[in-house]
């Protein structure tokens, strides 16, 4: 650029009717260059003054929109996470409840079983005990009946033997003993 400007300065000092060569081939005429620079400056200023804020606004809006979208996405994500958490909790709760119900059912079934078995055992024991008692009672009764029968027979036999053996002298002895016992009774 510096070289270019130097050239421009030199060029201005030199003969204008010179055959263009070298660098002058690519460079425009100086007037053209000045007009171009001024036009550029005007366009630059216009863009700088009116275009930049518009671009800035647009960028800001865009940024805001993106930020808002991000935030919304974040919120949605949070919501989804909390929902998921909720569902998980509910699921866990439901599972727990189900387990509890199953456990309860198992326990009550167990209790019922124990109860039924216990009752059946008690009843069986009762029946056995009753049967034993009845058998014992029956045996006792039979024994008592036999004992009574034997006693009655023995006594009948004894009575006959005694009746046979009580003669006059035995009678006298019995009566004498009765009288002496009467006297003792008084004493």
């Amino acid at each position: 650029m510096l070289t270019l400007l130097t050239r421009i300065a030199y060029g201005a000092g030199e003969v204008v009717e010179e055959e263009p060569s070298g660098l002058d081939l690519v460079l425009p005429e100086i007037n053209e260059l000045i007009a171009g620079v001024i036009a550029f400056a005007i366009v630059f200023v216009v863009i700088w003054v009116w275009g930049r804020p518009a671009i800035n606004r647009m960028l800001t809006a865009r940024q805001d929109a993106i930020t808002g979208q991000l935030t919304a996405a974040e919120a949605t994500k949070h919501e989804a996470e909390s929902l998921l958490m909720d569902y998980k909790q509910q699921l866990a709760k439901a599972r727990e409840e189900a387990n509890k119900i199953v456990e309860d059912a198992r326990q009550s079934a167990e209790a019922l079983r124990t109860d039924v078995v216990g009752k059946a055992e008690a009843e069986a024991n009762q029946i056995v005990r009753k049967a034993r008692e009845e058998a014992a009672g029956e045996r006792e009764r039979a024994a008592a009946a036999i004992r009574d029968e034997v006693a009655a027979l023995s006594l009948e036999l004894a009575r006959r033997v005694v009746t046979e053996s009580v003669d006059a002298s035995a009678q006298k002895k019995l009566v004498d003993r009765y009288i002496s016992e009467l006297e003792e009774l008084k004493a």
Partner: protein
Amino acid sequence: MPDDRIDGYAAAILEFAKAEGELARIGDELFRIARAFESSDELREALTDPRLPVERKKAVVDDLLGDKMSRLAISLVNFVVGLGKATDLPLIADRLAERAAAERNKVIAEVRSAAELDEKTIARLAKSLGKATGKDVEVKTVVDPSVIGGVVARVGDVVIDGTVRHRLEEIRDTLIRR
């Protein structure tokens, strides 16, 4: 028969026997007839059968007792039988014996034995029973083979049992009621 009526009959017979001067004998004989009545099913059935006419009953009494008892005793038995009170004969005879004894300030001791007791034994029994009961007793003997051996005396409500039958019953009670 109510108690007071038995008493009445006994009193009537007592007065009658006293009037005849035969109280001791009549009382004794009626007592023995009553025991015979108790121990002989035949006699009891004959005298209490309602289908049998009174004349037949009197004939039975004469047949069975005529040669053993005094006329007076037979008449009194026939008197009771004639009134249809034969069933109460033992009670009346007992009451009569009690009253006759009471006339002499004595109580009756009914003594049952398997065999007849001799006079000496009866006297000893009377003495010892009197001592045991604290009363002046008059012994009335009854022969009852079912006692087997020994003696049982009943003075009023008191029974003093020394018979073989009683012993056997005691043994039976011990053996059976355990």
